[in-house]
């Protein structure tokens, strides 16, 4: 553990992400105000003792909404990485092991997905399925599958060439068991690093989709949605935009640094794939 904290990226990233997580956890049991309670008398206020981050156009407490928004972002990050990771790793392993046409098919499919601008396709998906947080997560997950499939394929191929795999084969271990017992543990750190980075990307992507109105729907608090609403009142009350924006930057920076720090400590030679 000590060797992780010797890395500055990791330490800063760890602290920033931890604050986001703590804020999210607290919001589950307590927020300064009900995040959805409107108060017409206190509309568009700047920071004050009562409302440290001000209020929005309906008089809702921004601090409470930012905290609730953190839960939203973390759920999206976790779910998208979990889906992308599990499906992507499976495809990547199959690709690395079978090679030939299986590999070609999976990788060309990945290229196909990569060929489209992510946001554009996410818009397409959400406009077909209808805008909602679930569909936004689905759209992001679909983009994560090739990211993890490619990464897994690349590192798994290296491991599969190693002699201890031949040793396991000679011992009579079946190929899928080899993948599970030998290949996965040896690529886990690489996947963990990429997962952390994709977590940060997912937060940004969800904010983007929600900003466009395709993600989380009102009245639920989401950082992207809050930015969207703040846009109209930019000149009147810039606070409304500044704090959700800062929250996004904070969380994305935090998880990115965490990922970089993990990479530096766990795997200095690793080449980043997207």
């Amino acid at each position, binding site marked *: 553990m000590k060797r992780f904290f010797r890395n500055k990226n990791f330490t800063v990233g760890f602290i920033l992400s931890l604050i986001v997580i703590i804020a999210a956890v607290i919001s589950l049991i307590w927020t300064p105000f009900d995040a959805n309670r409107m108060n017409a008398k206190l509309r568009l206020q700047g920071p004050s003792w009562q409302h440290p981050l001000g209020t929005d156009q309906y008089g809702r407490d921004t601090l409470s909404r930012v905290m609730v928004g953190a839960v939203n972002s973390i759920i999206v990050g976790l779910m998208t990485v979990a889906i992308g990771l599990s499906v992507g790793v499976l495809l990547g392993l199959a690709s690395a092991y079978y090679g*030939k*046409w299986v590999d*070609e098919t999976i990788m060309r499919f990945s290229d196909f997905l990569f060929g489209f601008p992510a946001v554009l396709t996410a818009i397409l998906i959400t406009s077909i399925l209808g805008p909602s947080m679930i569909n936004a997560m689905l759209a992001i997950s679909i983009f994560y599958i090739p990211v993890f499939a490619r990464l897994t394929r690349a590192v798994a191929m290296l491991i599969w060439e*190693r*002699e*201890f795999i*031949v*040793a*396991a*084969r*000679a*011992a*009579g*271990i*079946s190929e899928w068991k080899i993948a599970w*017992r*030998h290949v996965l*543990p*040896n690529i886990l750190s690489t996947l963990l690093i990429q997962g952390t980075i994709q977590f940060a990307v997912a937060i940004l992507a969800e904010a983007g989709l929600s900003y466009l109105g395709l993600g989380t729907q009102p009245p639920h608090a989401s950082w992207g949605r809050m930015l969207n609403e703040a846009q109209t009142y930019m000149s009147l009350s810039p606070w409304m935009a500044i704090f959700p924006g800062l929250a996004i930057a904070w969380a994305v920076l935090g998880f990115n640094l965490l990922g970089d720090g993990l990479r530096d400590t766990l795997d200095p030679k690793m080449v980043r794939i997207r």
Partner: protein
Amino acid sequence: MPEVPLLKVNNLIKEFPLGGGLFAEPRARVRAVDDVSFALSRGETFGLVGESGCGKTTLGRLILRLVEPTSGDVEFDGQHILALGAKEMRLLRRRMQIIFQDPYASLDPRMKVNAIVTEPLCAIQNLAKSERKKVAAELIEKVGLRAADLDKYPHEFSGGQRQRISIARALCVRPDLIVADEPVSALDVSIQAQVINLMADLKKEFQLSYVFISHDLSVVEHISDRIAVMYLGTIVELAPAVSFSDSPRHPYTAALLRAVPMPDPHRKTEPFPMEGDAPSPIDPPPGCAFHPRCPHAFERCRVEKPSLVKTARQHFVACWLNNSRGLGIE
């Protein structure tokens, strides 16, 4: 009735394609193993020597069916192993194990010694944790390490110790045959002797047969009953170890023997009888593959490939010089 040999290799050929892709034909094919046949009886140690790239490692892996041959046949205890399905093959693997050259590459860095050593056993049956540990402890002490080492990871050991772990893993299922693929080549000379002696002791204790692969003739001579010399994928000479160094019949063997360093400063050094590198197996020379480097080559060697023929008791040579007379090398 003659005894069924433990291992019989018949006309084994392995070609590797070079280049090519999903739809493209390969540019060329390399014959790593070119028509090799031999038999190994129970309790025997069969030495396999040759330069790097002569196909000895591939041959070792073909024997265990870790690589599928292009053609030919391998019989293990009367069973044609190439005809076995994946499941039957996995079951047969408990009787044939392998020790690898590089003890740093052949142990999974993320596994504890305990798990490594008992892995072949887990492939065939589910063992309780305590049972597993007991087996592992017994094995690890057999190879000269301590039971306390079981909870360590491979990086905590030296090369020689790692090779001992490899040996313990191979012994785990009480196999009949162990293919040792350059088991000591990556080790210091002083450690080499220890490991080889350990292997010789274990052979007696567990009634093993070895296929012992090495590029170091002195190592092979020490441990083997019979020795085969490989050159560019083929066996050029096969003889009992005792008569081997005294009467080499193939010029390549003679050259190899000459290359073994002797700890005697007064021994006069003769000019080395062989020049150049081994030719590329992608484009082997016609006739006898050794003729471009052979000091005795004559016309026939350049056009016709010699096959392995018996020249003396248990002594086989693939060289045209031996068809009529001995080589005349002391």
